């Protein structure tokens, strides 16, 4: 197997331009996701899904400016009550997709967080573990890919993903998700999203290298006073055995709509593999025998 490749998405330099979403769709020739104004900051594609393999979340954390237009008259930093980082309904009736208590104290400038989400290509991938057809496999790059010519649309993978990434496409029925541009990787090219990303917020490379780079970036941000910076998904000790696509976040994962402690539903499966393999082999042999028997008739 070649070196394990991955994504490091540094959200501290994401400008929310969505080039990743478009470059992904152009390369993978995905259908559009409909034309719906979501009234959710600048996000109108809502979530990752069968036809959106990169999704940029927008989280507004802004000071409340009072009617007299002078926040300073309220004495320095204003306690944050912006809707986006608290989740739940907005005062005016809209609802927000992201939840979670922010660690960030909103100063006079406020923040507008943007983050490009993607399939995590987990070390322990629930989708792969439960796929009964073998449509989902682990590539020589350590990534997790669905083979559309094998997928029969059973949908077992959908609830097996702790991030809600993989999904079945309406009218097609099969399950789709990011392939980390497997075809491009096989030609020595980087994935379309990482190539397009104007600020290099999305970085692609050998996972080990990316982890080192990410750790250094966190140190830099901490030194600059951004103590809220942290990595998400880089640790092999997490509930999915480490993510092949990990993130630098500036707030709690929930703020970005990410589960704080994702656990693959099939966590114990690898340990059980020897036992399960034997059991399944017995079963498969029986199934095969019945097939062969059938054919021989």
């Amino acid at each position: 197997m070649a070196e394990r490749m991955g994504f490091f998405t540094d959200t501290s330099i994401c400008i929310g331009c969505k080039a990743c979403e478009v470059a992904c769709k152009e390369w993978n020739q995905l259908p559009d996701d409909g034309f719906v104004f979501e009234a959710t900051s600048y996000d109108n594609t809502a979530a990752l899904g069968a036809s959106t393999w990169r999704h940029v979340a927008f989280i507004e954390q802004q000071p409340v400016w009072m009617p007299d237009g002078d926040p300073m008259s309220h004495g320095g930093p204003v306690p944050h009550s912006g809707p986006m980082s608290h989740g739940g309904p907005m005062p005016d009736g809209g609802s927000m997709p992201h939840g979670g208590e922010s660690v960030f104290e909103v100063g006079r400038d406020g923040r507008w967080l943007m983050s490009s989400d993607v399939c995590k290509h987990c070390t322990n991938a629930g989708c792969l573990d439960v796929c009964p057809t073998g449509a989902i496999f682990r590539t020589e790059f350590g990534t997790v890919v669905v083979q559309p010519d094998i997928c029969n649309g059973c949908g077992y993978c959908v609830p097996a993903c702790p991030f809600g990434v993989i999904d079945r496409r309406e009218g097609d029925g099969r399950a789709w998700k990011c392939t980390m541009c497997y075809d491009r990787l096989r030609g020595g090219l980087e994935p379309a999203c990482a190539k397009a990303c104007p600020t290099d917020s999305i970085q692609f490379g050998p996972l080990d290298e990316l982890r080192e780079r990410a750790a250094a970036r966190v140190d830099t941000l901490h030194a600059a006073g951004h103590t809220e910076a942290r990595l998400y998904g880089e640790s092999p000790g997490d509930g999915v055995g480490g993510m092949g696509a990990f993130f630098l976040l500036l707030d709690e994962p929930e703020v970005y709509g990410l589960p704080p402690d994702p656990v693959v539903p099939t966590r114990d499966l690898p340990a059980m593999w020897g036992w399960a393999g034997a059991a399944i082999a017995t079963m498969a042999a029986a199934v095969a025998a019945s097939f062969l028997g059938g054919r021989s008739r």
Partner: protein
Amino acid sequence: MAGGGWFLRWPVIRQLRGQDGRGEAARSARTDALRPRVEEADSVARSVCPYCAVGCGQLVYVKDGKVSQIEGDPDSPISRGRLCPKGSASKQLVTHAGRQTKVLYRRPYGTDWEPLDLDTAMDMIADRVLRTRRDTWQQEHEGRVVRRTLGIASLGGATLDNEENYLMKKLYTALGAIQVENQARI
């Protein structure tokens, strides 16, 4: 043995035969054959993004007479291979179904478009230019020679090539048309 062949390729079985039950085991023939489609391109043109004025480099891949991919040119010292969402959508810009590829004509007071041959359209336009120019010619204005027409105007977009702007300005000026404007004003 035909039966053994398909049996061994059955993904569940292949998974089971693999070292860890995953990885190499489950690949289909289609998967094995995957390559980036840009490798099959008949030609690659080095171009420039048509949207904003940053001037990002684009590589335009053509296969069987059609654009098969447009992506950033890593050689460009301006963009280093990167593109914004508009630049990344450039293939759709040049291939989308809404592009008009035929001349259309609306006659005065007409209620719908009519088809028109390109050569005929060019002839008709040339006729109108000369007629309007003759009808509205000003040799003098307020006692000064102006040799111009105020009857013909032009407004160009700022995605025009330099060469195109040049021929436009050259031709209009020779015709005496002065109300020649561009997005660059706006």
